[in-house]
C-alpha cells in the first residue's frame, strides 16, 4: 500500500517554479530518502504532502486522503522540521504532556518518548532555553508522541552533533524494524541517508529524476565508479579523460577514479591496459563499485548547472 502518492505535482511561487511535474510514491514500511541540491523542491514537496501548501496542479494522497486541512490523517503522521517550531515559553515535559492530551495518549507517553530520544535531562527546561540540537531532539520526541505510522522529516539531523545523529539514525532503524514505521526523509547529509534509506528519490529542478535503491540508481544512471590504482595517476588520468564515454575523472596520489556512461564498463577495462602502456604507468589494481550517494547527488547538481546530460537519458519512471 502506498502511504504517499504524488502525481504530476506542480507548485510555483510567483514566477519561481519550485515543483514541476513531480511524481513520487512511498510504500508502507519503507524508508525513502529525498535528495537534491538547494532549491530542488524537496521542502515544497514535503509541505504539500503535509497540507501546508496547495499545489497549482497535480494529485496528492496521504493515507489515501487529500492532505489539505485533513484532521483525520494527522494522528498518523509525525513531522520533524529542519528548524523546530514550538511555543517557546513552555517547559519541555509540560508541552509534551499537552501534546499527549491533544492526541488522546496517556501522559506517560511523554516520559516514554523522552526516554526513547534520550532527552530526559531536558525534562524541566523551557523550550526557548534549548540549544538548536536539543530543540531538534525535542522535535523528534514531539513527532513520536502520537505513535505515527508515517514520519516525514525535513533535514532531521541538521542541528545534531555526531553522537546525536547516530542515535537518531539508530532510532529511525529501530522504529522501522520494531513498529514498521514508514519514513520519508529529506537530507543533505548523504552518508546518513545511505545508511538508513532503502530507496532514494533524486529531485532536481522540481522533478523526480530517478528513484530506486543506491545500486539501482548507480546502474540506471551509469554512475558506477571504476577505481584504477597506479604509480602514475597523473599521466593515466590525462589519457582516460580523452575517452568519449568517460564523464568523470578524479586523480589522486594513488590512482584514478573514473565514471563512465551506463554499459561502458567493459570498454574501459579493454582500454586501460593500452592507455597505461602509453602513459608508462603500472596498473596495481582495477575494480568497479556502486557510486556513493554523494556521487549521485553531485551528478544531480551538475545537471542543474547544465554540465551533465545523462539525466535526459534516464527512464524516470
Amino acid at each position, binding site marked *: 500500500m502506498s502511504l504517499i502518492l504524488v502525481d504530476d505535482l506542480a507548485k510555483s511561487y510567483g514566477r519561481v517554479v519550485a515543483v514541476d511535474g513531480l511524481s513520487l510514491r512511498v510504500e508502507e514500511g519503507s524508508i525513502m530518502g529525498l535528495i537534491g541540491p538547494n532549491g530542488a523542491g524537496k521542502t515544497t514537496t514535503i*509541505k504539500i504532502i503535509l497540507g501546508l*501548501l*496547495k499545489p497549482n496542479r497535480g494529485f496528492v494522497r496521504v493515507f489515501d486522503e487529500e492532505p489539505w486541512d485533513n484532521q483525520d490523517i494527522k*494522528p498518523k503522521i509525525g513531522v520533524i522540521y529542519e528548524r523546530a*517550531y514550538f*511555543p517557546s515559553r513552555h517547559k519541555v515535559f509540560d508541552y509534551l504532556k*499537552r501534546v499527549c492530551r491533544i492526541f488522546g495518549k496517556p501522559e506517560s507517553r511523554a516520559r516514554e518518548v523522552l526516554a526513547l530520544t534520550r532527552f530526559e535531562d531536558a525534562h524541566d527546561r523551557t523550550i526557548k532555553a534549548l540549544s538548536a540540537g536539543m530543540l531538534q531532539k525535542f522535535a523528534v520526541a514531539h513527532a513520536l508522541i502520537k505513535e505515527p505510522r508515517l514520519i516525514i522529516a525535513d533535514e532531521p539531523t541538521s542541528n545534531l552533533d555526531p553522537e546525536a545523529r547516530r542515535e537518531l539514525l539508530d532510532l529511525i532503524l529501530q522504529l522501522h524494524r520494531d513498529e514498521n514505521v514508514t519514513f520519508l526523509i529529506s537530507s543533505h547529509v548523504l552518508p546518513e541517508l545511505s545508511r538508513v534509506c532503502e530507496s532514494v528519490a533524486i529531485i532536481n529542478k522540481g522533478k523526480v529524476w530517478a528513484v530506486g535503491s543506491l545500486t539501482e540508481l548507480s546502474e540506471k544512471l551509469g554512475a558506477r565508479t571504476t577505481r584504477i590504482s597506479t604509480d602514475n595517476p597523473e599521466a593515466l588520468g590525462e589519457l582516460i579523460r580523452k575517452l568519449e564515454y568517460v564523464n568523470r575523472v578524479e586523480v589522486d596520489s594513488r590512482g584514478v577514479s573514473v565514471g563512465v556512461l551506463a554499459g561502458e564498463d567493459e570498454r574501459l577495462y579493454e582500454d586501460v591496459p593500452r592507455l597505461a602502456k602509453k602513459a608508462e604507468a603500472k596498473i596495481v589494481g582495477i575494480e568497479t563499485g556502486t557510486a556513493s550517494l554523494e556521487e549521485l547527488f553531485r551528478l544531480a547538481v551538475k545537471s542543474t548547472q547544465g554540465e551533465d546530460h545523462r539525466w535526459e537519458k534516464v527512464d524516470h519512471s
Partner: protein
Amino acid sequence: MGKGRPFLEIFTYALDEDYRFPILEVFAFLFALGTFVFADFAAYGQTGEALAYSSVSTLCGFPLLFIFVVLILKNVAYGLGGDLDRGVMQTLFSYPLKRRYILRARLLSGLGMALLLFLGIQIFGLFLLAPDVILTYPGTVFWTYAAQLCSPALLLAGLVLLLALRLKRGGLALLIGVVLLFAGLVVSGFVTSIAYGTGSALVLKIWAVINPNSALQSYYLGTLWFPSEIWVPTFSEVLLYLGAGYLIVAATFVAGYAYFERRLEI
C-alpha cells in the same frame, strides 16, 4: 478522536501565550485604573439617556481606545502573526483539528478573553460608580457599548487579523494596526471639520457606517456636539448604521476565516 480535547488544549496554549504572567494582571489593573480614574458623571447638565450615554462613553472611552486596543493588537496582530512568523502555526497544523478551530481557539483567547476582561471590569465599575445609570437605562448602556466596541476596536481586530494572515509577520501587522488606529482618529477629526465647513451631513453619514458610535453620539448629544441642523439621526437610523458597522466587522472576520481555512499557505 473527538475535537473537543484538542480544541481545549490549543485554546489553553493560546491563553498561556497571550496572558503569560504578568500580562493579564497588568491589563486588568490598567482597565480598572482607566475605568475608575476616567469616570466622569458630571455630564454638563445632561439628563436621562443622554446622561447615561455620556457616562458610559467617558467610562469606557479611554480604556477602550488605549488599553483594550493595545491588548488586541498584541494578541491578534503580534500573537497570531508571530505564530505564523515563527513557524509555530506549522506545529499547530500537525494537530488533529480543522484549521477553523485552530483560528477560533486563537481568537477566543486573543480577542474573546480581552473582551471578557474589559467588559467585566467596565460593568463592575459602572455598577459601583453609577448604579442608577445601568439600572435605569440598560438599553442605552447596551447600545453605547455595542457602538463603542464596533469601531475602532473590533473593526481594527478584524483588519489586523487579515493583515497578520496575509503578511505572516507579527511585528509588521502590529505596526500597521497602530497606524490604522491613529489614521482613524485623524479621519474622524477631518470628517467633523468637513461637516462643519460644508454644512453637509453626507460625510457624517458615510463615516457613521464605519464608526456607528458617531451616529449614536449624534442621536443622544446631537444638539451639544454637532449642530442639530446638520444631522440628528433617528434611533432606527442609528440601528441601521450599527448593523452596517457590525456587518463590516463580520465581513473582515469571515474573510479572515475563509483565508485561513482555504488559502493560507505556510
